[in-house]
């Protein structure tokens, strides 16, 4: 009897205890680090991810032109947070908290500037992925040459991410391997000098022979090139030499030399040039933005061709698309465009924001869009202008009709007037990260700042004239007409016009330390009242000097004793 009970007991115990194996079979159908870097295709996909992170996007706005701002509004471009744009002033744009706060000055340390993707978080995530890639690509089954070239691309992208962070925040935490998220005692922000030195050295190393190819062709077009490394080195130095970052110790001459290196290298090897459209050379400026592969590109964020009216740009009345006006150019930007002959129509503004008109230019405030820089018509749609194809017929912008007209101007840069965006043709619309025209402008600025002499001004004006000539401006500038400071203003104006809505102005007004002036004025737009063009105030703005650098996420500063907040927050 006892025996039988014992048998039953042992049976139960046996089932209960001796079957550890039942729980063992736990291999997953999910990817792990090992599985990624054991497989050539997965290794390549890890590199694709790094390219996908060149812009602050996530799944919700992947591929869109929006950046940084709340993910709930995909059409807000960073330029709306500058005096070029007034997206916040129009209907419903209160939904763009990042922009709203940059405009009202409400950016504080605790109220992080960005709701969706904070650049600090976004780019450090990208850097971690690059570091993991660099630490593991050696183990992958790729060929040695592919390993090397892949690693160098990852390294370039990592340096690029650091450069982006530097523009936003100044001094950075630097690590070149996947770092421990809990190393509170060892993780610190470096000095500005070390930060700049690190980024410049990385790009410098990558600019050396054999690190990155001069160009990628065919299905690899768009990957990092040697000139991209050189151009980013030049841009980093330009920023570092600027007033905001002058404590880095970088001299303007270094920036000028680095930019000239790009120009010399590109031209000696025929790598880059300003784009001239073979069919409509007078429209080269606008056509450039719709040519996917293009000699002016140095680094672009490639997008699939689309009809991106809805996602990218605010639609306006002729298009009849329901989308709030969240990206609109201001009168400030319009005033920056020269006349077609190259003369300046407006040489300044009075304290009531009315323009100081240059009578010699022939500019007429009541006929303001006549004879302007051709780039103006290729960038901004204004009252009375006709857009060739909307719903298969030409459409004329008429801001006297009752509608939501925002500033009275509409952005058409990047739009292709050869297709009907409304009915759905497709066109190439890349986001430009670095193009040859910028290199020329970087050089012009740096060389003019580096030395106050006529020789320098000749060099600077020469580059400006190349850009203006391509744009279709009739008369070139003359170096002898300028002093160092008047040329400085002219270079800045040229940069503003040529590169508008390419996310430069936001950083330029900061590094020049002029944001305090230009962002303490309201956005100005245009209206037609009683048949007359009338400038109108669109909003109320407020800028605080501390906003030249953005605040770090508050948790980062609270959690990490050696990561300090930017001053003023």
């Amino acid at each position, binding site marked *: 009897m006892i025996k039988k009970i014992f048998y039953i007991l042992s049976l139960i115990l046996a089932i209960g205890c001796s079957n550890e194996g039942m729980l063992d079979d736990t291999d997953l159908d999910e990817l792990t680090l090992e599985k990624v870097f054991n497989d050539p295709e997965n290794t390549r996909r890890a590199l694709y*991810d790094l390219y996908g992170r060149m812009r602050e996007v996530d799944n919700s706005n992947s591929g869109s032109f929006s950046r940084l701002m709340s993910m709930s509004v995909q059409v807000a471009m960073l330029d709306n947070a500058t005096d070029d744009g007034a997206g916040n002033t129009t*209907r419903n744009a209160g939904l763009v908290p990042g922009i709203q706060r940059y405009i009202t000055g409400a950016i504080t340390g605790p109220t992080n500037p960005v709701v969706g993707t904070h650049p600090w978080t976004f780019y450090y995530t*990208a850097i*971690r992925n690059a570091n993991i890639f660099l630490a593991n690509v050696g183990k992958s089954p790729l060929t040695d040459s592919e390993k090397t070239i892949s690693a160098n691309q990852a390294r370039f992208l990592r340096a690029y991410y650091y450069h982006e962070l530097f523009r936003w925040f100044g001094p950075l935490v630097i690590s070149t391997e*996947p770092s421990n998220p*809990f190393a509170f005692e060892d993780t610190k922000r470096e000095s500005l000098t070390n930060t700049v030195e690190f980024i410049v050295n990385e790009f410098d190393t990558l600019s050396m022979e054999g690190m990155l190819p001069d160009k990628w062709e065919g299905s690899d077009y768009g990957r990092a090139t040697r000139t991209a490394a050189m151009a980013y080195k030049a841009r980093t130095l330009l920023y570092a030499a600027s007033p905001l970052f002058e404590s880095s110790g970088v001299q303007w001459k270094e920036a000028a030399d680095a930019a000239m290196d790009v120009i010399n290298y590109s031209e000696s090897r025929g790598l880059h040039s300003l784009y001239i459209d073979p069919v409509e050379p007078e429209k080269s400026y606008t056509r450039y933005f719709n040519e996917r592969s293009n000699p002016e590109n140095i680094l672009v964020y*490639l997008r699939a061709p689309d009809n991106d009216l809805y996602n990218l740009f605010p639609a306006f009345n002729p298009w009849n698309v*329901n989308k709030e006006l969240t990206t609109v150019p201001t009168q400030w930007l319009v005033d920056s465009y020269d006349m077609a002959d190259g003369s300046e129509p407006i040489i300044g503004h009075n304290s009531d924001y009315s323009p100081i008109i240059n009578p010699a230019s022939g500019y007429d405030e009541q006929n303001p869009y006549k004879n302007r820089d051709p780039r103006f018509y290729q960038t901004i749609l204004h009252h009375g202008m006709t857009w060739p194809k909307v719903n298969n017929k030409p459409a004329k912008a008429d801001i006297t009709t009752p509608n939501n007209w925002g500033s009275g101007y509409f952005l058409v840069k990047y739009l292709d007037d050869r297709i009907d965006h409304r009915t759905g043709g497709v066109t190439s619309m890349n986001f430009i990260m670095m193009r040859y025209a910028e290199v020329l402008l970087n050089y012009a600025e740096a060389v003019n700042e580096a030395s106050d002499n006529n020789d320098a001004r000749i060099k600077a004006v020469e580059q400006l004239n190349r850009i203006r000539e391509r744009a279709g401006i009739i008369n070139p500038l003359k170096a002898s007409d300028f002093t160092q400071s008047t040329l400085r203003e002219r270079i800045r104006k040229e940069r503003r016009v040529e590169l508008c809505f390419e996310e430069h102005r936001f950083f330029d007004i900061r590094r020049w330390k002029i944001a305090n002036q230009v962002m303490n004025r309201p956005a100005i737009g245009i209206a037609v009242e009683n048949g007359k063009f009338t400038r109108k105030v669109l909003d109320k703005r407020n800028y605080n000097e501390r906003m030249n650098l953005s605040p770090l996420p508050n948790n980062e500063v609270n959690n990490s004793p050696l990561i300090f907040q930017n001053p003023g927050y």
Partner: protein
Amino acid sequence: MRNIVLILVFICCSTVLFSQTRVNGVVKDETGGVLIGVTVMQKNTLNGTVTDLDGHFELKLDNTKEPVLQLSMIGFVTAEVNVEGKANIDVILKEETIGLEEVVVIGYGTQKKVSVTGAISNVTSEEITNTPVSSVTNSLAGRIPGLVTRQVSGRPGDDGSQLFIRGTATFNNSEPLTLVDGVERAFNQINAEDIESVSVLKDASATAVYGVRGANGVILITTKRGSVGKSKIGFTAEYGITNYNRLTKALDAETTSLFQREGTVNMGLDPSKMSNTSNFPVSEYDNYLYRTQLSPFTHPDNDFVETFTKPGTQQKYNINISGGNNVTKYFVSVGYFTQQGMFESRVSELRKRPIIKNLLDLSPQVDAALKDQGYDASYYYNRLTARSNIDISLTDDLKVGVNISYLHRKQNRPATYDGLGSNAEGLRLFASFYRNAPQAFPLMNPNGSFAAAIGVWRQNPLVTIAHTGFRSDYDNQLETTLNFEYDLRKIFKGLSLDGRYAFDVNWSNWRGMQQRPYLYSYNPKDNSYLQGLVGVLPFQDSGNAAAIYDQYMELALRYSGVIGDVHNLSGVLLTNFTSTSSPGGQYSYVPHVYQALIGRVNYDYDNKYLAEINMGYNGSNRFAKGRRYHLFPAMSLGWVITNENFMPQSDILNFVKLRTSLGQVGNDRLGGFSYYYKSTYVNGESYSFGETPNPNVVGLREGRMANENITWETATKYNVGIDTRWFDSKLSFSADVFKEQRKDILTEPARYIIASGVTSLAPENLGEVTNSGYELELGWQSNRKKDFNYFAKITYSYAKNKIIEMSEARKPFDYMYLTGQSVGQFMGYNFDGFFNSYEEIAASPQQFGLSNLAPGDIKYKDINRDGIVDQNDQTPIGYSNLPERTYSLSAGFDYKGFDLSLLFQGASHSSVYMAGDVGWDNSWGNYFEEHLYRWTPETASTATYPRFLQKSDGNNQNYYLSDFWLRDGKYLRLKNIQIGYNIPKRAITRTPMNSVYFYVNAYNLFTWDKVKRIDPESNPDRNVGQFYPQQNIINFGLKINF
């Protein structure tokens, strides 16, 4: 039905065939009153009858069987009488002493209630079926002290309550473990008529046997089984009417227009020039048109609630047959439940609604265009349940059981704008009622097209409800259990072996059709139409989810015996194995596996001193090797003071039992993902290279980091309780005090360096929460009388938790920490009135550095007195969503066939966050009654709402989460009321019916609360309109027993 009659005829005939002796008798109770309806059976046969109105019975005995009668009736001790040679007998049935023989279901077994030492509460089937709801979870509300229920939705087929046993003590899943007939199964949609009892296990002693899964408490459902005796047939039919509890109407178009204007002016904009939020025309003339409704196509005044809702209905039918003999016992039940929702989707009906009718009358094109769609897009729910519980005695010692249950559900609803997706509330019908101003758009345009407006293209309810297609979801659940019980008395008296194997499968599929008309906005100025959403031509689709298979095996050795008359000893040793898999679905490759070895020993000395030791030794494959097994022990003690010799027998104090327990249980429900000990790589950004575009390649990036040390949460629980009965057991009082320490709660560390770039840290066993409280239950049950009985019961429960540790990010001020507060505590700004002047703004702490503040804006307190209100001024505000206190009062009586019962249920110490669609003004152009009392210079002193601005959204400082937007969540509701009438026996003596019972009952009939606009139990998703309002139900029923 015909078959049932045949069976009845067969049973009647069979008794006639054998040689017979006739026995007459009368059955009385101890007071001499005759007992009606006592079942009189000849032992071990199907031969039986029921006493009539005079307590009299007559039975012909089957002479081939033992001449013994069994007399039984609920509330009385069953009697056996030998009638050999007697033709006339009088029997007196003894009233059952309440509770003495009562058995409760406990983990892996049953136990006499008097000897229970853990904290266990139970509910009887009667209380559950009293409530006219589809989900049993709703009928548990207010029935059990310590069980917190929250019904967050009223959608047909998905209106069950969330259940919390003794509140919550974790940041992770706090759902209790639920078992049906000893196997882990959902009971949400089980047919209430099939339930015999519900046990709620609360403390460690009761739940330790469930080890790793017991920490959140356990709910055990036992279904009905057959018993020896004549076949019984029960039939129930119910018809109910449902209505939404709360749904606020928007203000009318004219008021909305005035408010729009006011908001635009407050923004410093010119309402005649600048666009305001939704471009509504707001001039005097426009207001005239809104008021007079002379031009409904251009100036509509829609009442969406009135136009698109209707009372819903529900019906329930159930039939069950049970009975048995020495060999076989059976319980078979079939139930059908159907519920129709509150939205009117039939175009023919909608055409009769005044607002739509007006449009039809004005425009022949509208009349022609608005046609029935030929498909059913209404919200409805059908459920078919079938259950068969069969017990077979193979020999005297070996019994086997076969339980099969099948559940089929169909849920129907409109398709969504985004397609046929699975998010049932994603179409935001609720939002379209709340968001849209009455003049946002006419429902249709004069040319017969469907109307909407810029910004709200998707919110025309006429399109959403009746013109977007439909989706039907089908869900099937088959549950089978095979069990045996082998009495080992031949080996050792009191020893038995039992086991069970269960195999459950759940599969579901759906089909649907989507279509949508084009939507246009009409511009009367130039008679033009602006096209909004593009139409979708009808297309059909269908799909299915991977089936889920659950297997369960159990083997148990039990002993129960008495040694030397006073030592009662029982014990169980049990092993089990659980596996869940879903090939093609989640856990496709690896099933979730648990195994356990469970032991329990109960000892009592002479029913005075009770002791119990429990242990569960569990394994789970959710953890890394070496961390998969753990032992959860518990013990409890009890002392029945009234059984002590020194306690005199008394009529005042009948019973006192003290109990205490302590022990450990675990929780491995760690949120969605199961294998945290592995790191992952996931899809990252997509990119493509090439001079000509190549297809995007999806990048790969680091996902979650791994934590190899991950393990389960451990709860250490203490419980002290007392059970007493007074005054002839009429009064009962029980109390329990508990404390729980939940450690190793899986938490994602919040303090880490962002610059390290990690996106997803592995959770760690970091958190610690304590939870403590008490439960009281006071009841009165009158002595059982023939004509008049009554009862009353009060329960009160309190459970408050506190976060001891949760790895929060460092905060600059101590008051900003959630640590030290309750789980789910609201954190936000402190409302400090409205600014009344610019001087006040200038003199007050700066608000977020904003320069555009004006009188009428909300002023927040500068908690840290640094001169600026910013993120550092957020503190705990209000409570959490989950009430800390719940209480109930139930009472009832029956008098001569009439009966009435009531259940009041309430909760307090919770907060409801009113925001978005339901709280704010003008989030999409809409206003509600409370916005009448907004701040204006004239009403500054009495205002209860901030000034209007252009558009409310969470990024505007007035709408930041602050205590201004929290409402006290306390409520009291008449959860249930039932009035019934039993037709007198004599009226049906000539029919085969045993009893006929008519009743009317109601659910959630009245609610008293401070939330007003929505149901106080609502879910936070209501703020974005993903919500289906809770319903109240008035129900008529009929129960017939044969």
